[in-house]
């Protein structure tokens, strides 16, 4: 037995010595997340963190319900009492904005989770199980993909105008938004299915569910993280677009609805530019944060793929 045993070498050497100089050195400290951090990702996370903490924590300190009209004098300029002035409806712009950001984020996260859960389950199962099941499922997926979301939402909005529950919008976005991710995940699973370790797992006695969860899922998890963040972006964007054209429940403060009200009350002409500009800047910054985080994760995962 001992004649075929390798001499004991430390793990770092084990990995490095076998590697050709071209291969990147292996980091074996899995507990440390340092490999994740690159400038883009850090910047994006900081932005998002500020938005999340700000919009979820600050509302507890709000003096009044910011949506309530005629609380203050109309169209006030920036003063120490009102950091962004007031709106034409007598609301404090800053507090309204904070609540809007919070609601938009809630919607985005809710939709993101919903879409991720559904598309993952469907994509994983369709890709792995194959056969008739896959064909039927992909038929449904492709049908959903080709349905354009915005016109549907506009039609639905026009039909049940005003009676829109805020979360109905979210639900509809989920229903019409899950298909694209499902197709991508299914493609990933199709190629994973051919890999040797799947067969190894089968010969180790693993069943279909165990294989999907333990073997396949880790390989798609990188995509899922990026996909989740992109979905948040997509959801907030869609809701904002709807709100701006008045299709959403504009009583509820969201980024889109602020812009809607500001446009409706001709903020530019009345000189209350801040009312319009502030939410736009906030939206752009939030999207920037989400985008940076998404591409930052992507870059981090891609750099890791080169290893091992």
């Amino acid at each position, binding site marked *: 037995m001992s*004649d075929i045993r390798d001499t004991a070498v430390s793990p770092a*050497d084990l990995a490095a010595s076998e590697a050709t100089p071209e291969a990147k050195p292996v980091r074996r400290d899995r507990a440390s997340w340092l490999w994740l951090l690159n400038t883009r990702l850090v910047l994006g996370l900081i932005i998002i963190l500020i938005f999340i903490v700000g919009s979820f924590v600050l509302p507890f300190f709000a003096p009044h319900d910011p949506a309530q009209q005629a609380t203050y004098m109309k169209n006030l300029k920036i003063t120490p009492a009102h950091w962004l002035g007031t709106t034409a409806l007598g609301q404090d712009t800053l507090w309204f904005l904070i609540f809007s950001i919070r609601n938009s984020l809630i919607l985005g996260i809710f939709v993101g989770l919903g879409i991720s859960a559904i598309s993952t389950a469907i994509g994983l199962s369709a890709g792995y199980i194959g056969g008739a099941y896959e064909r039927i499922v992909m038929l449904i997926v492709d049908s959903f993909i080709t349905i354009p979301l915005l016109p549907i939402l506009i039609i639905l909005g026009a039909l049940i105008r005003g009676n829109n529950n805020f979360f109905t919008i979210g639900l509809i976005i989920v229903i019409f938004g899950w298909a694209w991710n499902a197709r991508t995940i299914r493609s990933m699973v199709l190629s994973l299915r051919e890999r040797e370790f799947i067969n190894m797992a089968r010969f180790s006695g693993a069943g279909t569910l165990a294989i999907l969860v333990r073997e396949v899922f880790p390989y798609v998890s990188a995509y899922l993280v990026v996909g989740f963040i992109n979905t948040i972006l997509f959801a907030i964007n869609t809701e904002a677009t709807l709100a701006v054209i008045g299709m959403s429940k504009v009583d509820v403060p969201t980024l889109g609805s602020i812009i809607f009200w500001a446009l409706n009350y001709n903020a530019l002409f009345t000189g209350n530019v801040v009312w319009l500009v502030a939410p736009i800047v906030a939206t752009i910054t939030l999207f920037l944060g989400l985008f940076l985080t998404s591409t930052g994760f992507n870059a981090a995962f891609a750099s890791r793929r080169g290893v091992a």
Partner: protein
Amino acid sequence: MIRLNNVVARYTTVRGSINAVDGVTLEIPDGCILGVAGESGCGKSTLMKLIYGDVTSPMSLASGSIEYGFADGKGRAITSDNIRDVWFNRISYIPQSSMNSLNPVVKIGKQFVDFPGSDPDKKRVLAQVREYIGKLGLPAETLDAYPHQLSGGMRQRVMIAMATFFSPDLILADEPTTALDVVVQKDILLLLMDLQEQMGNTILLVSHDMGVHYQVTTRMLIMYAAKAVEYGDSESVFQAPLHPYTRMLISSLPTIGDDRARDGIPGRPPSLWQDLHGCRFADRCPLATARCRAEEPMLVEHKPGHWAACHYAGELADRAEAA
């Protein structure tokens, strides 16, 4: 004569840098077929890249130089600084995977004609090429085909044709037959040997297959952990290897008809990330002594034309001769 003067090839990464080739000094005479052997990670591919002049970040020629012994069209001596200028003219390269080297959407003929610095009269070049590939056993229709329409053996012949068309002085072949079937491999190797005999150029052949080395080469270079450990005439290296690693390498390969017990070499080469002292093979060498671990053996000519980097090579050579 190609001279390698203490060349060091360094890979610089975020984590640090390693010397994939760590001080190799050799003289390669013209007209020989030099086989370079060693396990993965020993530096043989890096050495090829270095000699070919394909030195791009993160790899760099950290120190040392290479003199090629031939001059370019203008009479300038070629060294590691300007070797790139004479690619395909004086020096060429046959890669392992022809499928990765040929443009899959361009016909073979066009890929020949696309060489920089070749005759601007495309028709004339094509005629010459057509004639040339006929000599290599390829039908003229090859030029009108796409790479995927040819078999692996034919594609590799195309690569050899491209590499030898301008009759370069030096041809580097990195595992040229590894991806081929054993029957096709024999044809390709015989072709290479024929061409070498006709053109009298020098061929550097990297292969993990010692059988290929035995059949094809006139000189052998054995590398281990970025160092050259044995260098000499093929016959001499195979019949009476001086370095323990070479001996173990040759005896680890089974041969048909030979029923002797064979053993793989246990253990692994040392990590190049560490600071290495002494002989790099000491940990796996059955003959290692304290001197081996402390003092690095230099490549010494123990027999005429046969170098080895081992403190005990001389003794072992004498013992072998006496036996």
